[in-house]
């Protein structure tokens, strides 16, 4: 809902800035910014208030129903609504009781619950700083923000508390209702049981034999192949297949995996919030004048938190699930997994604070964390490696499934890469540049790409429910990836002072990358072959498909960028930024989302609402295209302009509208992550909503188990 309101606002606000073709004068120190902020806060409060009101009115109407005579009818209604299994259980219970002649009275315990009385919940924030010149003062602004933070946090907390209280109250009422229902069912005269319920059961159990035309074998959906909508009416979103439950996963491992994925989702939201703000700074460079938030300091915070926080934790979390699965044994040590999670989170938290405080390693991209911080990350990697290898060592399968090839190698290589990048013995003068080229590209290709491919080799066949097209093609891709990818680092420094031969090796290696990329893409697409129809009723497969498409286009674009002739146009421009988003986002993030949506429902038994999964998918995809396509087009023009020897500022002026598009696309991407975070919450949160019918049956069963502890059925 919120996004629907915000998007048109953005669209109306941005073009105004574009027309001037110069940076916007937007600043958080201006009055408009505060008005906007107030507007957003007011909007959020309004939404919260409306939500609470809905809940309260639902509750009160329910409560009223309780009081009326019609309530008797309700109980009858429930009785009518009992499904076949519940009737069966009820009948069994009744039979047993009459058999034993034990006229027990139900023992039902109600937990007494503290109830928050929803007092003045629709109160607005009292903060409305008057628009005096005082507002321009930094100290005042900080004070206002400091006041606003606890107030807003308090309001959010209050909303949650009230909402919880309402839920509890509702559940309490339902429990009462359940008790009454149980009592009612208990007291029903036998004739009624026989007449009404048994008939009802028969009616419920009745089904067409479906052999009227086809013969005597009943057609039943014993394999769960039919996919029938539970919702009456027109479906708003296409109905997709539900995830299949996997009951045999160690709850401890399940908890660990969920924590990894939850942390990853947090870092995604954090890192892209920073990224979104950086994108806005290209359009409004005077948005703030705070040293900790200046562009140069925040940029590495963005890249490092999405790299080491989001993607790395996401991958390792999924790896923790896959390695024991494909080795057919338990995880070597859950504890090691927790330690690794702790160290990596610590690295990203400390690293981000350091970067914002101006403490960084010296300017090499993705190597901005100083060594003590990166050491924490390295420890996390080493612990994960031990855990994976030890699990694989005791596997009960003969072969090592290809996923493990990719994932374990990725961790080993990344440890090698980090050591190469942080050991000071070869970092003086141009040595630093050569290592930097190697490091920044191996980090991307040997860590994120290699590991993610391993994950896809597990989850894609699983989601398509068929084996991978060619195991050997996967093996070819594995070895050629090592051979070619290792060479290509220095293509980031073509035409620089590093040796010409090394540049040439990098360019040749970039050409060679066509082999693993084409092998991998072919393998994935051929696995899809014959199962394309599955895309339309799955919500994970579209993510996989986008990932595969970008795996091919993004990687081949990288090859194209490496040649000397294209370097002339694209090097140093935003083309590189577009490319890195096509790959890190289009490939890695889409694959990770696909796998997360595949695995989390299996662990928790809960799925995200389809409509928000759809919103996540489409906003991420459209946002990515809005982000990258204009940026690639604009930076090509800019490169040509440089080639023609035009003044530098002409290029900056040229980029203005494309930077605006980048900010718009970035906003969509960011919103999609809000949806993703919400989906994660929906999939993971423990619901305690009481289902009246099943809880009544449960209570009855509990009673009968008191009566006959020995008997089991």
């Amino acid at each position, binding site marked *: 809902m919120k996004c629907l309101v915000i998007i048109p606002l953005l669209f109306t606000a941005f073009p105004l800035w574009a027309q001037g073709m110069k940076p916007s004068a937007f600043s958080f120190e201006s009055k408009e910014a505060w008005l906007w902020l107030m507007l957003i806060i007011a909007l959020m409060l309004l939404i919260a208030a409306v939500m609470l009101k809905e809940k309260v009115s639902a509750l009160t109407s329910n409560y009223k129903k309780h009081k009326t005579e019609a309530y008797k009818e309700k109980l009858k209604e429930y009785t009518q609504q009992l499904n076949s299994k519940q009737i069966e259980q009820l009948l069994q219970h009744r039979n047993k009781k009459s058999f034993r002649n034990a006229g027990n009275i139900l023992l039902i315990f109600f937990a007494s619950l503290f109830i928050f009385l929803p007092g003045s919940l629709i109160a607005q924030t009292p903060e409305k700083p008057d628009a005096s010149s005082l507002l321009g003062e930094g100290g005042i602004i900080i004070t206002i923000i400091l006041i606003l933070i606890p107030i807003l946090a308090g309001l959010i907390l209050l909303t949650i508390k009230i909402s919880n209280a309402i839920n509890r109250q509702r559940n309490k009422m339902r429990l009462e209702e359940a008790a009454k229902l149980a009592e009612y069912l208990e007291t029903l005269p036998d004739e009624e049981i026989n007449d009404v319920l048994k008939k009802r059961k028969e009616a419920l159990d009745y089904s067409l034999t479906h052999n009227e035309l086809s013969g005597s074998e009943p057609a039943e959906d014993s394999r769960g192949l039919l996919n029938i909508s539970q919702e009456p009416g027109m479906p708003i979103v296409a109905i997709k297949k539900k995830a299949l439950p996997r009951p045999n996963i160690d709850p401890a491992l399940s908890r660990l995996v969920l924590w990894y994925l939850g942390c990853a989702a947090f870092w995604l939201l954090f890192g892209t919030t920073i990224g979104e703000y950086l994108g806005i700074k290209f359009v409004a460079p005077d948005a703030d004048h705070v040293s900790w938030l200046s562009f140069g300091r925040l940029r590495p915070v963005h890249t490092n938190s999405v790299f080491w926080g989001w993607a790395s934790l996401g991958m390792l979390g999924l790896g923790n699930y896959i390695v024991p699965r494909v080795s057919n044994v338990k995880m070597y040590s859950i504890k090691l997994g927790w330690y690794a999670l702790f160290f990596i989170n610590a690295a990203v938290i400390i690293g981000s604070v350091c970067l914002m405080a101006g403490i960084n390693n010296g300017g090499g991209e993705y190597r901005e964390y100083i060594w003590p911080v990166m050491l924490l990350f390295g420890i996390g990697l080493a612990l994960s490696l031990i855990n994976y290898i030890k699990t694989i060592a005791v596997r009960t399968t003969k072969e090592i499934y290809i996923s493990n090839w990719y994932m374990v190698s990725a961790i080993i290589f990344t440890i*090698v890469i980090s050591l190469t990048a942080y050991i000071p013995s070869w970092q003086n*003068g141009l040595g630093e540049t050569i290592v930097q080229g*190697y490091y920044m590209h191996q980090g991307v290709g040997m860590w994120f790409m290699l590991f993610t491919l391993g994950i896809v080799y597990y989850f894609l066949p699983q989601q398509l429910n068929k084996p991978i097209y060619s195991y050997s093609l996967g093996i070819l891709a594995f070895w050629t990836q090592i051979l070619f990818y290792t060479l290509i680092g220095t293509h980031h420094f073509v035409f620089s002072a590093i040796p010409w031969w090394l540049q040439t090796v990098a360019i040749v290696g970039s050409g060679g990358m066509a082999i693993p990329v084409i092998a991998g893409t072919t393998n994935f697409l051929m696995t899809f072959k014959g199962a394309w129809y599955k895309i339309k009723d799955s919500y994970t497969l579209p993510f996989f498909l986008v990932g595969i498409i970008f795996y091919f286009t993004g990687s081949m674009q990288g090859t194209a960028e490496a040649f000397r002739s294209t370097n002339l146009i694209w090097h140093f421009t935003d083309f590189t930024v577009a490319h890195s988003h096509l790959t890190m986002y289009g490939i890695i993030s889409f694959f990770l989302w696909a796998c997360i949506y595949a695995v989390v429902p299996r662990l928790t038994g809960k799925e995200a609402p389809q409509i928000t999964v759809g919103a996540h998918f489409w906003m991420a995809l459209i946002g990515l295209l809005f982000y990258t396509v204009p940026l690639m087009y604009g930076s090509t023009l800019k490169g040509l302009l440089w080639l023609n020897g035009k003044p530098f500022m002409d290029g900056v002026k040229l980029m203005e509208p494309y930077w605006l598009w980048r900010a718009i696309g970035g906003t969509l991407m960011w919103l999609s992550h809000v949806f993703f975070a919400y989906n994660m919450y929906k999939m993971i949160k423990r619901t305690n909503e009481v289902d009246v019918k099943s809880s009544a049956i449960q209570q009855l069963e509990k009673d009968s188990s008191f009566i006959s502890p020995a008997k089991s059925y």
Partner: protein
Amino acid sequence: MEFFNNHKKLFGTATLMFVGLTLMVAILPAIHNQENNQQLPGAEKLSADAVKGKALFVANGCVACHTQQVRNVDMDKSWGSRPSLAADYAGIKRTDFWRNTATLMGTERTGPDLTDVGNRQPSKDWNLVHLFNPRIVVKESVMPAYSWLFTIKKEPSKNDVVVNVPAEYLKGKEGKVVATKDALYLIAYLQSRKQTKLPDGTAQPEFLYKREVKKEAAGGAAAEDAGANGQALFVANCQSCHQENGEGLPGAFPPLKGSPVVLGDDLELYVNIIMNGYDARQEYGVMPAVGTNMSFSENEVSAIINYERSSWGNNGKHVTPEEVKKIMDFVKLNAPK
């Protein structure tokens, strides 16, 4: 196969292969370059202030947008007089116990290259104003404003470096903008960024991918300036201070529109200012020796003069390269060493 089913052999082989390739393309070339390159004989050591400035440059992530490498391609010619060489970076060593070497070559050029910015933009006043808020002097700039490197004082003392900032950028605050030590360190580092001259007799490496110079048969004034484009030269060398509209910035850089120097008869003064800089007026910043730094030819100087004399409503006398040549030979004697 047994090999693929033994995790030690499989991962051991993959690791060996990766480490071997890493040695070949990264570690050994890095060591080789570290051992076999030396600084040019004329290279100057960073001053103590510049060292502190470099630390600030690193801390604030300036390398995210500013490269420090002149590539050996023709399009990079505007950033330096020669392509950068391994020797230019050879003197850069590990920063300290916590931080790695910072060659600061960069991979993005959202802002201009800084390899030779000490020569290209030597004016301290311009740099300070620009640092306070780049949009004061370059209105389309998207560079962050580093106003936190400045303080505002009601009555600055004698030793304070006062920066002339237009009132609208002070957000209603009263007083004078004073550069902090950090701002001065950062400027010191920027001004130290000058390409070292190659030792005499060394052949200059070539710029590749030369642009084909279009020889347009144009008559009139353009032909007289022998191909030099006055407007392009002005944009590249003069506009950042004197501004596109020729009005300069009150309190910082003088206007050329209606300027007595531009429109007057004293051509010698005019050429002298272009070639050797100017610091005769208290109310304005110091002008660096732009012409000498950029090794302007008489064609280029006369093109600039003619552009300035015929723009923004100016209507001055046209000059020829010959006239300018005579004066240039004369004023060369005043050139700063």
